[in-house]
C-alpha cells in the first residue's frame, strides 16, 4: 500500500540524520568538493596563485604512463587481496567457530592483528621476505626451491605486499565471518546431515549462501580499502623497485607532496573516486541478486 509521506515524517527523518549528516557534510563532503575544484587548477601548495586551468589536469592523465602502471598494479592488487582475505578469514572463522577450550585466546589472536600498527606489520614482513637472511627464503632453501628476491624483485614485490596486507586484514574478516557463522541456524545443518549430506556439501549449499550478506559487506569494504592502498607501500618499497608497487594513492601522494603537483593529484583522486563508485555500484547490483537477507 503506497501512501504519501506526510511532511512531519520527512521532518522526523531529517531531524534524525541531521547531526551526523552535518558533521560528515562539513568534514567529509566539503573537502571532497574543494578537491574537485583544486583538480581544475594548477597548484603546488606553495604559492597562493592557483590559476584555473579547466580540464588540463585531466587531459594529462591518459598520457601519463606511470599512472597507467599505477592503475594496473592497483587492480591486480585488489583482485588478489579481496578474495584472499575473505577466503582466509572464512576458513579461520570456521575453525574458530568451535566449542574448544581456550577459544577466546585464539579469537584474541585474530583481533591483535587489527591492533598492531602498520609499521610493525611492515617491519616483520620486510624481515620475513628478506632475500639473503629471511625466513621465507630459508624455508625455500630447505625444500630445495630456488631463492627469490621478493621485495627487491620488480616482478614479485607487489605479491609480497598482497601477502602482508592479507595478514593485516585477516582479523577484520575473521570477526565479521565469525559472527555471521554463529547466526547460521543449526537446525538447518542438522536436518541436512541427517539426510546424509556431507559436511562440505552442507557448507556449500546451506551455510555459505546464508553468509552471503557478510560476503557482500566484506567485498565492498575490502575493495574500497584495497583501491586506496597506501601505508604499506609507503613503509616498505615506496612504490619501487622500478615502480612495480606504485599504486594509485601512492602516486597521488608523490605528485602532491614530492613533486608539488597538487592540482594534478586532485584530478587523479577524482578518477579513482569514479572508479570506486562504479565498482561499488556493480558489487551491490550483483549482490542484490545473490544475497539473502533476513527480510
Amino acid at each position, binding site marked *: 500500500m503506497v501512501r504519501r509521506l506526510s511532511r512531519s515524517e520527512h521532518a522526523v527523518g531529517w531531524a534524525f540524520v541531521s547531526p551526523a549528516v552535518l558533521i560528515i557534510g562539513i568534514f567529509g563532503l566539503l573537502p571532497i568538493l574543494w578537491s574537485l575544484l583544486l583538480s581544475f587548477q594548477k597548484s603546488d601548495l606553495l604559492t597562493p596563485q592557483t590559476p584555473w586551468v579547466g580540464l588540463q589536469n585531466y587531459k594529462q592523465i591518459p598520457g601519463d604512463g606511470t599512472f597507467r602502471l599505477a592503475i594496473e598494479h592497483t587492480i591486480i592488487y585488489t583482485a588478489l587481496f579481496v578474495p584472499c582475505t575473505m577466503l582466509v578469514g572464512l576458513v579461520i572463522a570456521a575453525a574458530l567457530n568451535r566449542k574448544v577450550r581456550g577459544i577466546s585466546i585464539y579469537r584474541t589472536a585474530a583481533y591483535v592483528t587489527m591492533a598492531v600498527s602498520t609499521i610493525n606489520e611492515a617491519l616483520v614482513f620486510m624481515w620475513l621476505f628478506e632475500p639473503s637472511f629471511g625466513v621465507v627464503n630459508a624455508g625455500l632453501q630447505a625444500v630445495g626451491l630456488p631463492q627469490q628476491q621478493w621485495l627487491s624483485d620488480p616482478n614479485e614485490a607487489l605479491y609480497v605486499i598482497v601477502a602482508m596486507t592479507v595478514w593485516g586484514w585477516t582479523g577484520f574478516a575473521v570477526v565479521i565471518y565469525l559472527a555471521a557463522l554463529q547466526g547460521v541456524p543449526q537446525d538447518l545443518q542438522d536436518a541436512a546431515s541427517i539426510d546424509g549430506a556431507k559436511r562440505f556439501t552442507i557448507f556449500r549449499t546451506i551455510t555459505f549462501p546464508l553468509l552471503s550478506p557478510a560476503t557482500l559487506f566484506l567485498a565492498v569494504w575490502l575493495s574500497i580499502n584495497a583501491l*586506496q592502498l597506501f601505508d604499506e607501500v609507503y613503509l616498505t618499497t615506496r612504490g619501487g623497485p622500478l615502480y612495480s608497487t606504485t599504486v594509485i594513492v601512492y602516486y597521488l601522494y608523490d605528485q602532491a607532496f614530492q613533486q608539488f603537483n597538487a592540482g594534478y593529484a586532485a584530478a587523479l583522486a577524482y578518477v579513482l573516486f569514479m572508479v570506486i563508485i562504479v565498482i*561499488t555500484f556493480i558489487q551491490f547490483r550483483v549482490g542484490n541478486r545473490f544475497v539473502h537477507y533476513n527480510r
Partner: protein
Amino acid sequence: MTTSASPTLAGRTEQPVPAEQDHDRRRFRLRRPSAWHLVLIPISFILLFPFYLMVVTSLQTEAQTRRFPPLLTPPTPQWSNYAEALNAAPFVRFMVNSAVVALIIVAGNLVLCSIAGYAFARLRFAGRGLVFGLIMATLMVPFQVTMIPEFLIVKWLGTNVWDQLGIDHLGALVLPTLATAFGIFFLRQFFLTVPIELEEAARMDGTSRLGVLFKIVLPLSLPALSTVAAITFLDAWNSFLWPLIVINTESHMTLPLGLTTFQGSHDTHWELLMAGNVFSLVPMLLVFFVAQRYFVRSVAATGLKG
C-alpha cells in the same frame, strides 16, 4: 526468511556458540583435547608473530636490536626500557589525551550514528537514498587529498565559531570523526534485522520514534554498538596524520605523535619505540577484551548472517 525471531536476538544470553551443545556436550567431556588445536595453534602463531617480535624487541638493548637477522628472544630482558621510554616524553599525558579524544569520538559515534542509522533503516524521507550515497562517497577519497581542506575548515571554525574547535584544540581532533560513514552503514544494516513487529507494536501504543529507538531497538543492539565502539576506538587511538597536522603544542599531543620521539630521520631507537608501541597497545587490548563478549555475538544480526 526464518520463521522464528532471529536466534541471535532476544533471549540469547549464554555462550554465542550454535546449538551443537546438547549433541556435543556428552562427547566433549569424554573427548581428548580437540584436534582443532593442531590447526588453531599454528594459525594463532602466525597471527601473533609481529606482536611477539614487538615485545621481544622492546626488551633488548640498543646493540641487540641492531642485528640482522633479528634475535627471536631477548638475551637479557631490559625491563628498564619501559621506564626509559615513558620518561623520554610525557607519555602519561599523551595517553590521557588519546584516551579523552578516543572516548569522546566513541560516545559521539554511538549517539549520532545510532540515530542516523535508524533513520536510514526505518524512516522514509525525501532524499534518503541520495544522502546515504553521499555519506558512502566520503569513504572513497583518500585522506591525502582531503587533508588540507579539512585543515582550512577547522581553522575557519576556530576563528569564526568557537576557538575550542580550531587548530591545536580538542575540537579539531574530535569533531571531524564524531560521526562516520562506517558507523552509519554498519548500524543501518543491523537495525534492518530487528523484528519490525516489535517496533510497530510500540508505535501503536503511542511511543514516539525516538522512544522506539531507545526503548526497543538499542537494547537489542548491544552487540552492534559494542562493535562500532571497539572499531571506532581503534581508529581514533591509532590516528596519526591528522593529529600531526593540527597539533602545535606538545602538551596536546596524542600517543602516536609521542611515539615519533623515538624515530629520528636516520636513527631509530627500536627498543624504546617498541616499548612505546606495546604500551600503546595495552588499552586497545583491554577494550577488545571487554567488548569481546558482545563483539562476537554482535554482527550476527547486522543483516550479515541472512
